């Protein structure tokens, strides 16, 4: 399914479903991020490089993930 189709579908059903889906997808995104930041650190990426890839500052990336990932 194309993205604009997904977004339109997201507007048409019960808002309860659409809103819940948006919330669940945030959880999915957070988990993907956490997993791959860990992988990047293991692969030798600096916090600067990770921040640049995520579109946040080095400090923001480290503050968010630094406690769980070395």
């Amino acid at each position, binding site marked *: *399914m194309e993205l604009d*189709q*997904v977004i339109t*579908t*997201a507007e048409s*059903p*019960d808002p*309860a*479903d*659409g809103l*819940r*889906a948006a*919330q*669940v*997808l*945030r*959880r*999915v995104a*957070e*988990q993907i*991020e*956490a997993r791959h*930041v860990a992988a990047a650190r293991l692969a030798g990426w600096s916090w600067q490089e990770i921040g640049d890839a995520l579109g946040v500052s080095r400090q923001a990336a480290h503050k*968010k*993930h630094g*406690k*769980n990932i070395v």
Partner: protein
Amino acid sequence: MVTAAVAEAERRGDDHVGTDHLLAGLCATSDPSISPVGIGIEELRTIWLGLDRAALEATGIPIDPPTGMPRSRTGHIPFTSGAKETLTATLRETLELGSRKLEPEHILIALTLRSPRDPAIRLLDAAGLNPDAIRAEVIRSLRKTA
């Protein structure tokens, strides 16, 4: 019990504590065989994930919802306005019923008074439970022990 609600949010990887987490906290800390909710935490979690899955499907994203992995952000998880309102209403219910102590049952009463769109009410609906029937049952049991 509120601690259990926060733990449930952490477990699910949610970035907030809502009324649905309060309901889960109640299920996690009470014996389903005597609790008016009547379902255990494991059953509730399954129903909850079913709601998440159905919501994703309805929006054209047929993936499995995450079943819980520690969230990356540690520290304080904010309560939703609804959850805060519920805790305020809990105090009101406790006073109105003339109870001497604030019990988990009072939180359950406050939860059953939420609007039909509330996440906790949705969760009860999905579990095939009637909020009004639960409230009546809780009030009856509180009167008995009072």
